[in-house]
């Protein structure tokens, strides 16, 4: 009888004793690291405004032997339009088309003119830039920047540049913006 009572009491005391103790404190040994993908690279833009020109860190692509702009260049043109809109002090920009020495001079001259005009039209119609701020001109193969004897040189020579031909004075951008607005509403 006495022995039977101890059988009941011992585990009871044991359990109550343990339960009466405080909680067990613990923590993660080290931080649980959750890795996401690498952070996106900040897009600093492909278009920079310098004193003389818009420097484009990319190239406008056309269909072969054509003034039709390839769709892959639409984003770039939108970016160019955005920069022009963001700089009302750039009162007049000359869009200049250049060709490589492939083909007849006259043909290249005409093609470069048509391509420059095509870019201008795109910036006006799709980019919302006032017509009055943009001119277009073609120089054909007369102003190479690289060797026309190599493929890579000819590729560099086929280009469109954006030269700043008129700038309003600092503080007078309002005039340019107002002028822009008037022309846009009238077109």
């Amino acid at each position: 009888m006495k022995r039977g009572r101890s059988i009941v009491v011992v585990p009871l005391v044991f359990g109550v004793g343990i339960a009466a103790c405080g909680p067990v404190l613990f923590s993660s040994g080290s931080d649980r690291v959750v890795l996401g993908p690498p952070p996106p690279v900040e897009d600093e833009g492909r278009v920079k405004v310098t004193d003389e020109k818009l420097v484009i860190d990319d190239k406008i692509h056309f269909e072969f032997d054509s003034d039709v702009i390839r769709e892959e260049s639409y984003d770039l043109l939108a970016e160019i339009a955005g920069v022009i809109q963001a700089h009302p002090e750039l009162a007049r920009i000359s869009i200049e088309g250049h060709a490589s020495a492939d083909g007849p001079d006259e043909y290249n001259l005409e093609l470069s003119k048509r391509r420059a005009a095509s870019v201008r039209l795109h910036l006006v119609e799709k980019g919302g830039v006032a017509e009055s701020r943009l001119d277009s001109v073609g120089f054909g193969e007369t102003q190479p920047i690289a060797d026309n004897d190599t493929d890579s040189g000819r590729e560099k020579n086929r280009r469109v540049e954006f030269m700043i031909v008129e700038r309003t004075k600092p503080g007078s951008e309002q005039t340019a913006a107002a002028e822009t607005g008037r022309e846009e509403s009238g077109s």
Partner: protein
Amino acid sequence: MRSFVVLVTSLSLGCAFAIRDSERYRDDTDLAIATKDDAVRACYDRELVKDAHATGELTLEFRVDRRTGALTDVAVVEDRSDVSPILADCVMDEIAGLQIAPRDLRDGKATYTWSFRHAEA
């Protein structure tokens, strides 16, 4: 000897429990929490959709209930957390209700920290 037999008998009758030290408690809780690693990662992925640069730390406190082995009373340690409330809530939802087995004779009181980072580019 007889008391030991009674204890074993009570265990065999469905009263299984453990008596853990803090290290063992942590190890078992780690195992439970690890089952939610993918879900926590999904929480972070959703955060990154809103903010691609989101990083930070989240420290949660919780209790491991001795009666059920469940992780309960999950709360953010504000002064050690800098992630968005949405990410914090998402992780809390995933962690709450996890269970460790067997249950313990004592509550556990834990502090866990998650570090949300970008992988190297």
